């Protein structure tokens, strides 16, 4: 077999690198268009999907419907400003989640009329499967004025769809 000169080797190397670059770009493009790419660190401790009042679109004027994607295996958490307002989980309306406790974290003077953040933990129901849709709803009857537009009527809701990239 004929041996390649150093210049030819450089050219081949360049072509290989160019092809690899194209592959990389194409791969990146595909992964950008793929809805649910692999998460490299999926096996580490799983942090929750956290939802705050800013994630709420329920009842907000002009807000188009929004459905949050949630991967199977990850916990969920809702954080809402309260105290003296008290937030409660509406188990009658919520679907596809199970509560895993709640607490109040002291957070004074960040948002007018609230002294704490209510933190609710959830997990997906054991039978949740790819494509299923659910909702988490929490309510309060004592909504502070400072939250009247972002949480109209004292209702927080986040709709979600379960995805399983595997």
């Amino acid at each position: 077999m004929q041996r390649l000169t150093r210049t030819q080797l450089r050219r081949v190397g360049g072509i290989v690198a160019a092809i690899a670059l194209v592959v990389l770009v194409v791969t990146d493009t595909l992964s950008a268009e793929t809805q649910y790419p692999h998460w490299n660190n999926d096996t580490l401790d799983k942090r929750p999907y956290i939802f705050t009042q800013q994630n709420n679109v329920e009842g907000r004027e002009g807000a188009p419907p929004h459905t949050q994607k949630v991967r199977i295996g990850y916990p969920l958490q809702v954080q809402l400003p309260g105290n003296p307002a008290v937030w409660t989980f509406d188990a009658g309306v919520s679907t596809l989640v199970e509560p895993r406790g709640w607490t109040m974290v002291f957070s004074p003077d960040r948002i007018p009329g609230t002294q704490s953040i209510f933190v609710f933990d959830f997990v997906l129901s054991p039978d949740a499967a790819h494509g299923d849709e659910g909702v988490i709803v929490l309510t309060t009857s004592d909504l502070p004025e400072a939250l009247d537009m972002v949480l109209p009527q004292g209702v927080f809701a986040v709709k979600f769809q379960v995805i399983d990239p595997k």
Partner: protein
Amino acid sequence: MDRRTFMQRAAAATVGAQALGVSTAMAQTGDALRSLPELRANGTHLSTDLIIEMGVFQVGKRTIKVPAYRFADMEAGSLPGPTLRIKPGDTFEWNLINRMVPNGIPDGATKEEIAAFNQLEFTNVHTHGLQVSPKPGGDNVYQQVGPGDPPQPYRYAVPGPETGRPQPAGLYWYHPHRHGSTTHQAWQGLSGAIVVEGDIDQVPEIARAKERVIVMNALLVNPAGEVPRAMIAPNAGFSPFTSIPSMPTDIILTLNGQLQPVIDIQPGEVQRWRMLAAAPHRFYWLDLEGHDFYQIAQDGIPFATPKPVKRILMAPGNRAEFLIKGSQPGTYKLRAVEYEQGHPGGARPGWVIGTMEVGGEIKSDPVPTTLVEPPTMPDLPVVQKRTVTFKGEISGNLAKGAFVDGSDHGGQHGTGLPPVQFYLDGKVFALDRIDQHVVAGTVEEWTLVNEDVFQHPFHIHVNPFQVVKINGQPIYDDTWWDVIALPSKGQITVRMYFRPDVDGKTVYHCHILPHEDNGMMANMLICPPGSDPYELPEDNQTCSA
């Protein structure tokens, strides 16, 4: 995957990856603290490219995929970026080249939603603390460079002795400063140290000491190891921000891109550590178990004598340089102590960010008793006293436009309700508004009023300042700062000298970068000496009527 397998695979990947301009680096918990790549001026001039390319980095058990800086002569990028070494009187220039690629995209995002965040890959570069011209072509934070744009040249003339006010020798840094994407890129670790070498390096005890440049980053990543490419809102708990749409996030505090590295020192040895707080949000209340810090400089400007302190508070953007003297053999934790900076949900948790191992031959290095003559505040009258008020809104309940010039900070989901809004003097940042006209060669006092629980770190470009009052009470401290954390619901008065040889339009802002990106920044026009711009309106972009 065990470590050996990972190292082998990563090494194999590196060979192929570097040809593609992709960076790789590895760092496991407990590795020795690494030195960052460096570039030094040859003579009095330096010219290079400052290239941003995508990289893959191992940080502890995680694989992180972020853009990284490299200089032209480097084969691969570095997390954080490489260190630049210059001297007062040098000139340096670089071409900023942006090859960022979007990642961190929320599951299910539509093409329109993806396109709405294209601005997060636009960038520029700021040389934080350098007393150089902010004009176009210089330290111009209004420039923006998109992915694939032509290289953007920046040139800097570092003040030398001939100016009568040379750039103090110390630690400065560079980082992106494009309004709206600064935070995102800081969470990706885009930052690098600038070391200005000079008189303090000649102090014999310091000249003999081993030097470490340590960059502290906070990486906010999703389980893909990517920074969420979405709106961000604060929350309580370990990871301080969530995204809209939500994705799980983790916060990782690194030293030189490593998770909990080990720093070695001999008993009785004196080392010089230059530490940079490059995280966009986290305050570092530094504590080194069993050791004092002998602080020798703050924000790049040296002290006359070392100041022994037990702890050092570093707000985002601060630098602290100090000497450490190794004590008895053993292992000592370097901590970012739990600190209440006003974030929703209370104090940021304590972290062990590294360890120091004391061992080996006993030395008896001395700590110097005197350093150098620091710059002094010129004995000039205070020509203007101003008040700047800081206020933030984190409920997500106020419509855009509730504050002056708020129209460019839109709401999510078409509701017109931005997740957060931050403002100075009731106004969010507007490119074409001049909030303060000042005059080069004069001294002013600014009272910075914080109406929030959040501790806003005030930063101003070009000129450093001294603190003269806290909550109206005089303070007698000749420390120079370019970032100072305002107390919760309190105020600080600073005195600053606008050096006479630098004019132009630049900014002052909160250095909690999510605050800055969401409005807490304003423009200042430094007019040439002899100007009288004090009565000019905000829409006057010049120094005369």
